């Protein structure tokens, strides 16, 4: 039963671009959904399994994107996959430094330090010259093995592949020693330590896996969008969106992040593109030139973050285990 469901989902995901191939806008949204699902799944390995909430995962995403684009603008003939690997190395170094400082400590420090590290990365990129500073980086042209990277479809499949890899790692971890250990750490650190679990080692391991996957997604995004600046790939808001996606779907569950992304990304897109306003106008409920119509048109782009805030609060108060938490078998 489960296998059939999985095969149907996989087949749909693979075939989707064929059906909507003519519509780059929809493909774009699907790429965002896949990316957010993968980002949130990667975060979930650390936050959901090990209970170590990172509030600064944008640092690893941005590191991947920046490393790749900086290298390619320096030398266009480099293999993008090599640049991606370089991104993983830089992200891993940042993760190891963060982990070795914070994971010796108990309590609230990791969350705080993860933001501090993310801010250090963001401000450094903003202030340095080789990173393009406030202007950001523009990549003119790129190719891989003769594949046309100007079209969106390769990136759809690229994101899908990374999502599948991330979910597979999640699934493998859940049923392996490491996964059990991470969950033990989440539940009770003293009990975990007394049962022979090296807390710092396993937390660092989870952080490294999570950071590396996040960095790969950053590289892919950089190649896809080909223009990045700090507000796009290193902002605190991105870190929060990643967490929120997991929370809404169900933290610590394998499919929670996917469910969260399927809900949140289209919602954000609707708000951003003033779809709500358009619908209200078309339905004749609001006139386009009336005060409300103009207000919606001008402000809904900002409003999507406000809506995120409201969803966060409601979710924590009424649905702290997320949507999948509702359906979980009661033990």
């Amino acid at each position: 039963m489960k296998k059939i469901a999985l095969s149907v989902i996989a087949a749909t995901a693979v075939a989707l671009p064929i059906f909507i191939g003519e519509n780059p806008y929809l493909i774009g949204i699907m790429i965002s959904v896949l990316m957010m699902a993968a980002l949130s799944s990667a975060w979930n390995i650390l936050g959901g399994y090990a209970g170590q909430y990172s509030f600064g995962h944008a640092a690893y995403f941005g590191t991947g994107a920046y490393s790749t684009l900086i290298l390619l603008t320096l030398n266009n003939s480099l293999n993008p996959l090599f640049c991606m690997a370089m991104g993983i190395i830089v992200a891993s170094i940042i993760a190891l430094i963060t982990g070795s400082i914070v994971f010796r400590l108990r309590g609230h420090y990791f969350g705080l330090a993860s933001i501090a590290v993310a801010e250090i990365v963001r401000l450094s990129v903003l202030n340095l010259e080789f990173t393009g500073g406030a202007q950001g980086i523009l990549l003119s042209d790129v190719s891989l093995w003769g594949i046309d990277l100007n079209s969106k479809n390769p990136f759809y499949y690229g994101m899908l592949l990374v999502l599948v890899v991330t979910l597979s790692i999640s699934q493998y971890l859940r049923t392996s020693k490491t996964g059990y250990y991470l969950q033990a750490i989440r539940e009770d650190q003293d009990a975990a330590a007394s049962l022979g679990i090296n807390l710092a080692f396993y937390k660092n391991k989870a952080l490294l896996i999570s950071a590396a996957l996040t960095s790969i997604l950053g590289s892919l995004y950089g190649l896809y969008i080909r223009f990045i600046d700090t507000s796009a790939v290193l902002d605190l808001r991105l870190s929060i969106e990643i967490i929120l996606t997991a929370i809404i779907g169900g933290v610590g569950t394998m499919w929670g992040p996917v469910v969260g992304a399927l809900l949140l990304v289209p919602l954000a897109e609707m708000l951003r593109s003033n779809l709500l306003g358009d619908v209200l106008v078309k339905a004749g409920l609001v006139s386009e030139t009336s005060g409300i119509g103009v207000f919606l048109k001008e402000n809904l782009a900002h409003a999507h973050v406000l809506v995120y805030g409201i969803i966060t609060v409601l979710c924590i108060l009424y649905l702290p285990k997320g949507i999948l938490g509702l359906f979980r078998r009661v033990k």
Partner: protein
Amino acid sequence: MIQHLLLISHVSKHFGGNVAVSDVSFAVEEKQIFGLIGPNGAGKTTLFNCITGFFPTTSGDVIFDNKKINTLRPDEVCKLGMARTWQRVKPLGSLTVLENVMVGAFSITNTTREAEIIAREQLQMVELTDYTTKSAGSLSIGLKKKLELARVLATRPKMLLLDEICGGLNHTETDIILDIIRNIRIKGATIVFIEHDMKAVTSICDRIVVLNSGEKLAEGTPEEITNNSDVISAYLGGGHHA
């Protein structure tokens, strides 16, 4: 020569200006059941925390199996074959009973399959097989104590430190736990256990150390301890009747 499995040598632990444990020494021999008793606040749990690596000692040494362990982390101490339970039980709440015990078993195996086999054996030993798929957080206190026992046993320890494993249990439950402890000893493990209730301790221990206000008050066989006038007055003074 007698083999000391655990040697506590002049251990002190201070918190700021407070002396929780002061210059305590004793030795535990292999396959002993060793009792650590004393009124509330005597420093028993603090001493456990020092032995198992949760607190660094202020001075003194802890030698286990001929290795100095008071500078090691808790997980390293566990890997050497010393496991502990907690006075306030610490179940991994959202994991199942079986998964809880598997976490313990992973300290001696790397594969999930073997961990599950070991865990099931231990659950059988403490008679928890009916609860394998229940979440650990939902168990009653008595069952949680059994779960703690199964979980540490899954690490196959040479020495077990039990912190008030019978606390909060009724007579039948206490008897079941004491039986399990006797069984563990027969299988070759050494046991140190903290208990409040003198009766439980004297019925099972080979040797007892009494702590009072962080200091060692007396040491001896259960008989010597129950007849020791210092111990009797400490217990009466502390408001605890034996």
